[in-house]
């Protein structure tokens, strides 16, 4: 076998030499033959003639020798390649469209699939990641499938401890929460985001630090943190990848924290994707002891051999035990157990699947278009094939010629596709707002997937070959003379035409589905961005300030700072007002509280729960939330009487007071028996809750009691662009205390733009929109090609019609009618498909139903216009047919 290959290779490399030898060898034979006849007494002329006769075709003998040496196919290939290149250069339009179609189809699909793979298919970087579950506590009153994924993923610390003690189904249960510090070192202090976790957290995930050690039992102290484990990225950027980093310290707030480990490079934890380092949980008395303060997120690993069902059953038992023991806190609590992956990607999964489906349509259209192009081209070359067949080219030879041409196009298309896939993947990732990308760290290193790329190349090329070869094969089934005659008459095989019609119809239908999808997404995005959130979102700047406890130890210090800072900011030019609150709207945060209404007795633990926001007096005027009844908070509420007053919104009144007059009613919070009754002093307009796409949220507002607070959220209303006010406010803050930092300054517009609810519409709007645009172009090209071809094939017929007195108008109608027929069939099929498929979009739609007649009508109009435009150029050409030329050209 090897020797055989070597022989062929040698023959190939010494091709010219071998040719010479073959020549010489055969000539020797021939001459000896002639000599023989001459010797036997034949005249030389006669001897030559006989020898030649017996010898047969010299070239054929040579050809067969070359064949026998096994190099002929390579020579054929070179020949075909040269010829193919010439053919492709001769029709640059066809070549460009085919390569572009292949490249975009393959590239876009690879890019999308690569992202889908990174998010949905690639295993999470933990040991046996499918054994990891999240546990959260919800009150049964909350719907389990509530909008905000994180709302039902929190537990109280005492409950967590009980789970960990009692559970056998989980071998390890860990908790974590967001954390953040002001880090001082060389240069300006910086705000760094971090995460705190129980000491068994990394053990539960099955992750080992790549340098140093894991947290040890007992390091989770309230006075902490004292130790930290760095992420690989933070270690590289902040410590220059110092291998001796262990034992070095970081100054975090007032603590000196020593570095005990570095996490592996591939470590990621989406729920705290932005964390630069991890510290042991360091929590205060209230968080440790309050069983109804649910703040910690819990991850648990199933014990070996335990099934999910067993674990659910066991958690149920533990829950009932806790409910019985603590009816006040846990009476109405349910435990939700969701796989970790589901928790992480649950929100983006529908989006990705929809994009995947949409781009799949682009691939189908690309395939149909390529098939169409190749069929048209092959049809147009029937004469050539028949001639080649007549001149002795075997069937194999004809196929190989087409194959080579198709493969050259495919290679060029694949190369373009590779670039598109590469850029496309980066573009897809780059288009995700940073905070959201932090929550999807698995996308950061998504790259064009080689396997998918290869698969798509194969699929697309297969389509090209299958359709391109059909006409070449057909010829061999026909009698050549028939084919030639047929060709002279200028008609094409009916079968081929029907297939091409079907391709164009399919393209139009797919295109319509994509356009409808894009239309619905754009409409949703627009509805969302134009939704009135209940306050004026323009010209608002939000940020936070964290007062270090060692410098501001007493509650009065915080009060003084707040007053001083608010005064300074208010006096800045262009600032219309400043307010503080505990929860910034639409930021995804939410606090809830349980309450009872005076005169509505409730069983212990079964109270209602609603959102609560601590707001300063200026909050409603600054946010421009309207007053509906009663009054806003005033300075009198700031003092000792603050505990006595509360404001509610309209939907709260509707839900809990059933239309009774709210002002003057009294409610009591139930987290502590010492809580007093508070009087409702005012009713304000409704605002959206934690997410812009959620329903209006029943909410309670209490006066912002600065006493004891060290963390302030501020909302500033500006006259002009709020982002421009940042510098002046930062300067004001620095004047008060140089060590204070403006944490996360964001305009409300930014918060909205980067919120998941907007991203989930904007991203697919852009993408499906581009896919639809691409599809529209491809479909138009397909239709144009088909009609042009048909016009060129019918030149003679049209000429006769015109000669017999047909008006140009009739010809126009004839040609346009043909296009219109295809477009209408495509639209009908497309509308049916769209009605079925847009149902899958439903979870992403906002303010528009999956069946939206306006979108459907608009899309049909667009398709009709584009289809007619695509047919118009060939129709014009048909009108211009000169009957004399048309008849003579035969």
């Amino acid at each position, binding site marked *: 076998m090897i020797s055989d290959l070597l*022989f062929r290779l040698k023959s190939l490399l010494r091709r010219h030499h071998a040719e010479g030898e073959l020549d010489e*060898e055969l000539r*020797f034979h*021939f001459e000896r033959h002639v000599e023989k006849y001459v010797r036997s007494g034949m005249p030389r002329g006669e001897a030559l003639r006989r020898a030649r006769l017996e010898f047969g075709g010299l070239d054929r*003998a040579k050809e*067969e020798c070359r064949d026998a040496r096994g190099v002929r196919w390579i020579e054929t290939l070179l020949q075909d390649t040269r010829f193919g290149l010439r053919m492709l250069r001769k029709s640059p339009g066809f070549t460009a469209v085919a390569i572009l179609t292949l490249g975009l189809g393959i590239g876009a699909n690879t890019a999308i699939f690569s992202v889908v793979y990174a998010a949905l298919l690639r295993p999470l970087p933990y040991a046996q990641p499918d054994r990891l579950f999240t546990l959260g506590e919800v009150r049964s009153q909350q719907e389990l499938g509530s909008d905000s994924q994180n709302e039902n993923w929190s537990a109280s610390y005492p409950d967590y401890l009980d789970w960990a003690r009692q559970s056998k189904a989980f071998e390890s249960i860990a908790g974590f929460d967001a954390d953040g510090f002001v880090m001082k070192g060389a240069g300006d202090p910086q705000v760094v985001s971090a995460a705190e976790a129980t000491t068994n957290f990394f053990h539960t995930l099955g992750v080992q630090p790549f340098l140093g050690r894991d947290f040890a039992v007992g390091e989770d102290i309230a006075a902490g943190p004292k130790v930290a484990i760095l992420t690989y990225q933070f270690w590289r950027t902040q410590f220059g990848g110092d291998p001796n980093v262990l034992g070095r310290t970081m100054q975090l707030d007032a603590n000196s924290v020593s570095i005990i480990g570095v996490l592996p490079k591939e470590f990621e934890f989406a729920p705290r994707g932005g964390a630069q380092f991890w510290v042991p949980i360091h929590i205060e008395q209230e968080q440790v002891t309050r069983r109804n303060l649910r703040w910690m997120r819990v991850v648990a690993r199933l014990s070996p051999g335990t099934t999910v069902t067993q674990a659910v059953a066991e958690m149920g038992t533990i829950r009932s035990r806790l409910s019985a023991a603590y009816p006040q806190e846990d009476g109405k609590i349910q435990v939700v157990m969701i796989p970790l992956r589901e928790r992480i990607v649950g929100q983006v999964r529908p989006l990705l699947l929809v994009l995947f489906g949409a781009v799949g349509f682009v691939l189908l259209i690309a395939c149909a278009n390529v098939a169409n192009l190749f069929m048209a081209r092959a049809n147009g070359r029937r004469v050539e094939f028949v001639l080649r067949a007549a001149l002795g080219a075997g069937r194999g030879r004809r196929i190989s010629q087409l194959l080579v041409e198709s493969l050259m196009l495919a290679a060029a298309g694949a190369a373009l596709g590779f670039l598109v896939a590469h850029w496309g993947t980066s573009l897809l990732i780059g288009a995700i707002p940073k905070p959201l990308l932090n929550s999807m760290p698995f996308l950061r290193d998504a790259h064009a997937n080689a396997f998918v790329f290869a698969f798509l190349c194969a699929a697309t090329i297969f389509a090209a070959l299958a359709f391109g070869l059909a006409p070449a094969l057909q010829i061999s089934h026909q009698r050549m003379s028939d084919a030639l005659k047929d060709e002279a008459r200028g008609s094409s095989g009916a079968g081929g035409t029907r297939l091409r019609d079907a391709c164009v119809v399919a393209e139009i239908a797919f295109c319509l589905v994509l356009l409808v999808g894009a239309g619905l997404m754009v409409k949703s995005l627009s509805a969302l961005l134009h939704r009135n959130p209940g306050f004026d979102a323009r010209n608002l700047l939000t940020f936070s300030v964290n007062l270090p406890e060692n410098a501001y130890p007493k509650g009065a210090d915080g009060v003084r700072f707040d007053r001083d800072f608010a005064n300074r900011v208010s006096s800045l030019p262009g600032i219309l007002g400043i307010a503080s609150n505990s929860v910034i709207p639409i930021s995804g945060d939410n606090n809830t509280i349980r309450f009872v209404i005076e005169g509505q007795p409730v069983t212990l633990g079964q109270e209602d729960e609603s959102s609560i926001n601590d707001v300063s007096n200026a909050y409603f005027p600054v946010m421009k939330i309207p007053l509906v009844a009663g009054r806003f908070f005033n300075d009198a509420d700031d003092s000792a009487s603050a505990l006595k007053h509360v404001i509610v919104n309209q939907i709260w009144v509707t839900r809990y007071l059933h239309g009774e007059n709210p002002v003057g009613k009294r409610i009591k919070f139930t987290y502590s028996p010492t809580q007093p009754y508070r009087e409702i002093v005012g009713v304000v307009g409704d605002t959206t809750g934690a997410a812009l796409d959620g329903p209006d949220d029943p909410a309670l507002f209490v006066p912002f009691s600065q006493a004891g607070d060290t963390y302030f959220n501020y909302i500033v209303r500006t006259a002009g662009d709020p982002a421009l006010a940042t510098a002046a406010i930062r300067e004001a803050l620095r004047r008060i205390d140089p060590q204070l930092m403006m944490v996360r300054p964001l305009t409300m517009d930014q918060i909205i733009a980067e919120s998941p609810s907007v991203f989930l519409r904007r991203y697919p709007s852009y993408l499906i929109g581009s896919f639809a645009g691409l599809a529209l172009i491809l479909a138009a090209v397909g239709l144009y090609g088909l009609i042009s071809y048909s016009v060129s094939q019918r030149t003679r017929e049209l000429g006769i019609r015109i000669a017999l007195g047909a008006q140009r108008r009739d010809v126009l109608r004839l040609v346009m009618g043909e296009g219109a027929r295809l477009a209408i069939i495509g639209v009908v099929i497309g509308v049916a498909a769209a009605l079925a498929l847009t149902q899958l979009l439903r979870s992403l739609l906002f303010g528009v139903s999956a069946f939206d007649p306006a979108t459907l009508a608009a899309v049909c109009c667009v398709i009709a216009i584009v289809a007619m435009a695509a047919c118009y150029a060939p129709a014009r050409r048909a009108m211009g047919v000169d009957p004399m030329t048309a008849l003579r050209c035969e």
Partner: protein
Amino acid sequence: MANQRIELPQGTLDLLILRTIALEPQHGWAISERLQRISSDALRIQQGSLYPALHRLERRGWIKARWGTSENNRRAKYYELTKIGRKQLEIEKDAWERLIAAVAQVLGTA
């Protein structure tokens, strides 16, 4: 009748070529002449099949080619058996004889 040509069964040409050059290296023309003479003109090998067969055998490594000088002092390509070729000749000869015997037996009894 002596001139009546026989169609060679598939694969026998290879056997005949191998056998013809088994004694000494030969060039193509000599091989065809010799086959014709030994078979009393019953076998006439066309160049169109002889040379492709030679090249095919060479590719298989059963024979090898060498340029030499012919009896009339001209450059000619001589083919000789390789070691594998010699073994192959034995195998093919054996197979052929068994085929002949089997065919003869069938013809004899029928």
